[in-house]
């Protein structure tokens, strides 16, 4: 692991230790109740995934300020830095998940996050008629919302999910563009 990743990992561990902890089963139960309620209301796996992503989006918009305020991280130099920060600091601090970055493309505009474990998935088995449901789609929304608040528009989706039968959990993040909130200075 590079020095940068090691520093971020330390920052993530420190931030995690300072956060108040809650029983993970309570979280799994609450999240499960929410998803099953959404399933009752929308019935369609794709629509439920969309709703989860939307919820995650509003969470992400708020969570980013907490990450910036509480974890000792400075501005990211490039998208790879962003990837490492999300993996080592973000996931660690808020969910206690150890995540790593993989499959960074040449231009540095895409990466994958590999999650070692996922507390939301504890005790969950997807029934056949919901096989297409992206159960932890909320993470995709959180990442999208958080990055939009720091001027990056991304597309975020699940490439692999243990609930769908894959061997690991992988989230793919693609940078669409960087938003500039510049003033409309007229160049002379």
């Amino acid at each position, binding site marked *: 692991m590079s020095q940068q990743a090691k520093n971020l990992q330390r920052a993530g561990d420190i931030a995690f230790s300072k956060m108040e902890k809650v029983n993970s089963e309570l979280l799994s139960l609450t999240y499960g109740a929410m998803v099953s309620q959404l399933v009752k209301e929308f019935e369609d796996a794709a629509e439920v995934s969309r709703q989860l992503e939307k919820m995650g989006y509003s969470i992400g918009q*708020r969570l980013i*300020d*907490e990450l*910036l*305020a*509480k974890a000792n991280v400075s*501005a990211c130099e490039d998208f790879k830095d962003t990837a490492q920060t999300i993996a080592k600091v973000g996931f660690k601090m808020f969910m206690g998940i150890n995540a790593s970055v993989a499959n960074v493309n040449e231009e540095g505009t895409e990466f994958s996050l590999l999650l070692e474990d996922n507390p939301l998935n504890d005790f969950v088995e997807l029934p056949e008629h919901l096989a297409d449901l992206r159960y932890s789609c909320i993470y995709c929304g959180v990442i999208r919302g958080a990055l939009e*608040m720091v001027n990056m528009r991304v597309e975020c989706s699940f490439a692999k999910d243990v609930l769908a039968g894959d061997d690991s959990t992988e989230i793919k993040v693609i940078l669409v563009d960087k938003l500039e909130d510049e*003033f409309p*200075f007229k160049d002379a």
Partner: protein
Amino acid sequence: MSCYTLFIINKAGGLIYKRDFSADAPKLSVNDQLRLVSTFHSMHAIAGRLSPVDPASGIDHIETNTFQLFCYQSLTGLKFLITSPAHTSGSLEHLLFKTYQLYSDFVLKNPFYELDMPIHCSQFDTNLDKLILGK
């Protein structure tokens, strides 16, 4: 810790929070407050452009013979401003950073608070009092 006033400015340059911490703080009408804050927002952006050093970050600290002003801008574009008496020694930036932490807790975690709107969260006020006035 003596301070006059705390201002919080959203991404668009609008005032979302103002709180006086001292009886000596100047009394401003609401319109004046809004105007001052959006002027500061523009100055901050211009200062970033004027700098001969790249990358520039705008205004951190203004020192005059009647007051001092400290500004912290988060990576999400939010600005925290605090004014204090002229003889204040040391930087109040750590106060602003703690205020940012209080904001991320008591304002953002309130589900009924809309982003970029004026802040009316009593828990935020109480905790700010504890931080800045020490009570």
